[in-house]
């Protein structure tokens, strides 16, 4: 777009607006990597806890404590990037800003839940409530990005959470938790990642818009 002073027709103007809005829309797409990593971490922790319940290798929450350490490491890296290195994205979208705040809120809610588990709610009901929290976040994500797999997944996740609420066996709750994160995070995460790769691949072929 170098011929800046060229006389524009109304149709051309409309086309430019449409083109640029479409370009910006692509920036709103999420690559799903965060969901995949977070989902697999939760899934592995749930399944290892079930195995641990059978073989009694370590204490009951051993794998959840390991997950907690990893989460804190990831969080610290994010905080250092944001506040120390001041690593800024080339473009800041409204959705991204919303997600930054929501991620912080989600993390605080998880901390509340973990505290409640330790203060007497207990792991059986506590994990059922956690699944409910996942469902809420997945619904917001799906709605904000107009990503149907996440919207559908949120309701399935809640179903898992609802069933988990009536369980008394921690092993069953762990299996339901693994199922919930598989449906809620891992599968939509991989779908999002595949769509993202398709879009970025197309963009590379087309060059700049």
């Amino acid at each position: 777009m170098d011929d800046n002073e060229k006389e524009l027709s109304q149709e051309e103007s409309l086309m430019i607006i449409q083109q640029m809005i479409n370009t910006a829309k692509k920036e709103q797409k999420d690559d799903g990597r965060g969901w995949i990593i977070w989902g697999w971490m939760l899934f592995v922790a749930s399944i290892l806890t079930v195995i641990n319940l059978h073989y009694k290798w370590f204490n009951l929450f051993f794998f959840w404590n390991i997950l907690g350490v990893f989460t804190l490491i990831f969080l610290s890296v994010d905080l250092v990037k944001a506040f120390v290195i001041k690593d800024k994205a080339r473009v800041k979208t409204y959705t991204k800003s919303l997600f930054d705040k929501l991620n912080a809120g989600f993390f605080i809610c998880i901390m509340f839940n973990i505290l409640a588990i330790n203060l007497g709610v207990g792991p059986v009901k506590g994990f059922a409530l956690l699944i409910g929290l996942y469902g809420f976040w997945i619904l917001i994500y799906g709605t904000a990005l107009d990503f149907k797999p996440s919207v559908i997944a949120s309701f399935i996740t809640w179903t898992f959470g609802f069933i988990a609420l009536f369980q008394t066996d921690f092993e069953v709750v762990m299996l339901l938790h693994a199922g919930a994160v598989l449906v809620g995070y891992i599968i939509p995460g991989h779908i999002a990642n595949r769509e993202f790769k398709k879009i970025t691949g197309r963009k590379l072929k087309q060059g700049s818009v």
Partner: protein
Amino acid sequence: MFKELDPILHSQLRLAVMSLLMSVKEAEFTFIREKTNSSAGNLSVQVQKLKEAGYIEVNKQFKDNYPQTTCKVTAKGIEAFENYVKALQDYLQVGK
């Protein structure tokens, strides 16, 4: 009677910049250059014109010893863009 199309916006590159900035919160100069497929010099001139018109806010800072320029549309810019689109719609409806 038709409203005259805003001359600040009725230019290929300035319109592209504004359309892009309307859809995001803020964007770096290099991002805008890449998406509009323009040269740095030309984009710089057009960004300056939009800034002078009060349609965008330009922030310059240094990151790792390199200048980093970010642009953000202002309330005045949003209003101008909306009026431009409305005027454009009026023209196109009569043209049908």
